[in-house]
Structure formats: C-alpha cells, structure tokens
C-alpha cells in the first residue's frame, strides 16, 4: 500500500470550451482528511466526479488507491465510497433495501452483507427506521443513510461531496462527529468538499482553497490562518494613548498596530494569551482599558485574502456563471 491515497497532476476538465477544473495538482496521504473548500461552481464536484470515475478528465493524470483514473475504473470503483452532493437514494425502497442493493452491487456475500448492514445502520442510528421507505426520511436521515451506504464495502477512500449541505446545525454537528470518527478510528482516507468555512476548519487536516477551477492555496487550516498574521485584539482606551502606542510598538510579538483615536487594533499570534499582558502594560502607562475584543481569523478571511472576495459575494456572481456552465454543457443536447 502506497503512502498516498490520491495523487493528481495537472487535472483538467473542459466542458464545451468552459474550463471547470484548471490544471490542479495535489496529493492526499493515506488516512488524511482532506478538504476542498470554495464557493459553488468552483469545480469541487467536477474534481470529485473525475476522481470517482463518473467523468472523464480532459487532460492530466489522476491516481486513486494506486489506480489510474483513466484506465483502472473498476479497481477504483471497488476501493472508493462516494456520498454525492444531491441524494442518490431510491426513495421507493426502504433504507435497508437501499443498503442491500449497494452491498450486492459490490459483490458482498450474504452473511457478511447482513453483518455489515447491521453495523452501519447502528453507526448512523437508523436501525429503527430500516424498514421505512426512504421517501419518508428527513434530509438528515437520508444523509446518514448515504454515509452508511458509502461504508458498507469498506472503502479505502471516501469522497464526501458537501456532506452537510442544507442540514440543520444539530444534524450537521452529528455528521461531523461521524466523519471525524471514521477518519480517526476507522483509518479511512476522506476527501470532502464544502463551502462552509467552519466545516473545513473543524474537520480537515489539510485544505485546498479552490476558486474558478484553480487551487489558490493549500495547507492546514491553522497555517492558512497564520498567513494572515494571527489574531486581532481591539482595545478601547481612556487616557494618554500616544505613550501607550509607543510602548506597545516596542513589544517584539506585536506584528501590526493601527489607531483610530481611542481605539487600537493590534495584530499578534495567540491573542487570548496576550490580553492580560496588554492590560498590565496599559495600566503601567496610566491608561484605562474599557473594552477588549479578540478576533480570530477565519477561513473566510483566508479566502478573502487570496481571492479578494468573500465566499458569499462569490456565490452571488456564481449563480450567473452556473447558468452559463449549464448552457454550454447541455445546450447542444436539447
């Protein structure tokens, strides 16, 4: 078994002249939890579809579990599990029947099948609902059933495309816990896509930020945030500000300082540990601190830093682009 679950080089997908994925390269280590973060339409799903053999790459090389995506499709299909962005369940079958269908398609023998279906149903707490038609399931239940299904054939690599899209906060939290456990206890390599910053931050060992088909940055969430220079501490003060500013400027760990009258905003690492010291320094200089506010940089700030736009802004303009993609892609067929 190689050290890498996935190796991708210059992978590209062009739909009728529109480049959805543009020469991306990355590797994912076995056992890693890797995230593709970006707005809708950035090319995340297209990337997943190429790696899971559903779409043919226009150019470039991809390798999943040691198999070439353009040649060893069946081997890849056997070694991966995929949870698609939109539900991919037969709603006219019960939850258990959906799992049985899947297990049989993957050639799992009867006894083993029964055992594993029981296990995964317990894992996602759907045992009581196994005989209910999927059309009666809630969104969260469907999602859990799909994750369960992705695990029946014990894949080496699990692809999760927007695993918590459209779910309420509580269910989302629940699914995050499953994903973490699968990765840490089950040792499954997981690639997930998301446009929720906090999801990528909470779950992923490493993140690639994707925008308009390209990777704009790739690193651990912590280090990505460090690029911004650390936390920002806002101080509201009363008294002789000039002396204090001079004093603070001489501190080695202060990276940046800006002043608006009685308000100071200071950039530093590990801001929460520095606040007491800052208050002491202020008191020594005869200045009263009336209010303190600490702001940790989020991945949202990181996205802003690299693209000059926030993800939300990006999504508004993306709606128009998506229509364009659909037109180009499906236009000729209608």
């Amino acid at each position: 078994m190689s050290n890498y679950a996935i190796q991708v080089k210059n992978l590209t997908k062009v739909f009728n002249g529109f480049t959805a994925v543009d020469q991306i390269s990355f590797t994912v280590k076995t056992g890693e939890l890797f995230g593709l973060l970006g707005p809708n339409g950035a090319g995340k799903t297209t990337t997943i579809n190429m790696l899971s053999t559903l779409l043919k790459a226009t150019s470039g090389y991809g390798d999943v579990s040691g198999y070439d995506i353009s040649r060893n499709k069946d081997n890849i299909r056997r070694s991966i599990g995929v949870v698609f962005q939109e539900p991919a369940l037969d709603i006219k079958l019960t939850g258990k029947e959906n799992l049985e269908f899947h297990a049989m398609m993957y050639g799992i023998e009867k006894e083993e099948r029964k055992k594993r279906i029981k296990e995964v149903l317990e894992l996602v707490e759907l045992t009581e609902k196994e005989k209910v038609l999927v059309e009666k399931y809630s969104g969260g239940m469907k999602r859990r059933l799909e994750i369960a299904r992705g695990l029946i054939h014990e894949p080496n690599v699990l692809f999760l495309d927007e695993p918590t899209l459209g779910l309420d906060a509580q269910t989302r939290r629940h699914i995050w816990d499953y994903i973490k456990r699968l990765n840490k206890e089950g040792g499954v390599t997981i690639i997930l896509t998301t446009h929720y910053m906090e999801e990528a931050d909470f779950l992923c060992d490493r993140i690639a930020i994707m925008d308009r088909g390209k990777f704009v940055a790739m690193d651990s969430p912590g280090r990505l945030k460090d690029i911004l220079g650390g936390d920002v501490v806002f101080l509201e003060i009363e008294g002789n500000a000039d002396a204090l500013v001079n004093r603070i400027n001489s501190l080695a760990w202060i990276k940046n300082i800006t002043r608006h009258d009685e308000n100071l905003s200071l950039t530093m690492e590990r801001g929460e540990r520095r606040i007491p010291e800052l208050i002491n320094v202020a008191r020594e200089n005869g200045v009263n601190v009336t209010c303190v506010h600490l702001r940790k940089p989020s991945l949202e700030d990181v996205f802003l830093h690299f693209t000059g736009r926030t993800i939300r802004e990006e999504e508004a303009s993306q709606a128009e682009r998506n229509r364009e993609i659909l037109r180009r892609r499906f236009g000729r067929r209608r």
Partner: protein
Amino acid sequence: MINKTAVYVLWVREMKRFWRAKSRIVGALAMPLFFLAFLGLGFRRMAIPGVAGDVGYIRFLVPGIIGMSILFSSTFGGLSVLWDREFGFLKEIMVAPVSRVSIVLGRIAGGATTALIQAVLILGISYIMGFKILNVSSIFLAIVFMILIAVTFLGLGLIFASKMRDMQGFSIVMNFVIFPLFFLSGALYPLENFPVWLRYISKLDPLTYGVDGLRAALIGVSSFSIFSNFIFMVIFSSVMILLGAYFFEKSESV
C-alpha cells in the same frame, strides 16, 4: 464481464418498485383495455377488408392491443433511466464496480418482466371476456414474441434516454416516435389497407412483425409466416439492445 448478482439485484429493484406502484399498474392496464373495449365494440359489425369474416375485429384487435401495451411500457421502461438521473440514483448505479453491460442487462430484465406481466394480464382479461386462443402452445409462442417486443423497445428507450438530459423531451418521443410506431404496425387494422408507399414504411417498424407474430401465435392468422416474424424480431431486438447498451455506455452519468 457479466456480473450475475448485479443483473439480479437490478431486476429485484425493478420488481419491488413495480409491486409498490399498484396504482401505476392499474393505470397502465386501463388504456389498452379501453382501446380494446371501445374500438372492439365500435367496429364490431363492420366488415374490414383484410380481416377474415370468421376472425372478427375484436379477435383481430387483441394481439394488436397486447403489442401496444408492451410498446408503451417497455419504451417507458428504457426511458426510466432518466428518472434515476433525476433522483440521483443513476450515480449510485454508475459508480458501482460492475460492467456497464450488466447494468443494461439488469434494466432490460426488469423492464421486460414488468412489460410481460402487463401483457399477460391483458391476455388473461381478454380471455375471460371471450377471446379465443388457438391452443395452449400458442400461449408460449405468444410469450416469446412479447419478450422480443419488450427487449426491442427497451433498447429504443435506452437510446433515447442516453441522448436526453431530462424528461423534457418525453412528449416529443411520445408523439413523434411511439405513436407513429404504434399506428404503422397494423395493431389496429390490416396493413393491406395502407397505400403501397406506406406499407413499405411500416415494414421498417419492428412492432409490425411483433404484432403479426402475436397474431400468428394466438389466432393463427397473419400477413407473414410466424417463422419470418420470429427471425425479424430476433434481429431487431439484438440490434436495439446493442445500440442501447452502446449509447448508455457512452453517455455521461452526471
């Protein structure tokens, strides 16, 4: 290459869905039975050239209506790939490690079984209403033709499904493909009454041989010999299945 478990499980899925949609079965049976009842009763006393006097129009019509029911249900069966695409389930099927041929065979097995169940029900109801079947062995012969018709049009449905993105083109297929195939086949009237040029076109319609084969099997009266009907249907069904499988394999699943 052919994964038997996959074919089987796809067939089982189709059977479960069919069994759970009982209202759909009733709906699918209603139209052919209405055709049979109203056309049969309406034209009952008319002497139609090409229908022998001792056969009678209703007896002539029953095999045609059975052919019609299979034409509709199996074309829709092939097109049902589009429903799976709509509901996302197609991706679940396509990402599984089974050959695409097995997937096509599974769909055909399922679609042909449901079409056959409906056709046999219509035959049974006609029998109860007084339709005289030649003899017992003719039922088996008729079932052979039913399967061949079903496979042919499942292949056709698959071809269309591979070329369409969603159900929007459905009414076009319905109006410009299925109905012309139905009317050209001679299911409702003897083709001898068509002008010569139209008769040539109807000879290109697979359903012509299907319906004629059903007539040969069930009432012993037909335009072509039962053997040539059989050979034509074997050729049509093989070609359609191969084309259907080819286009299905080529089509993108997302």
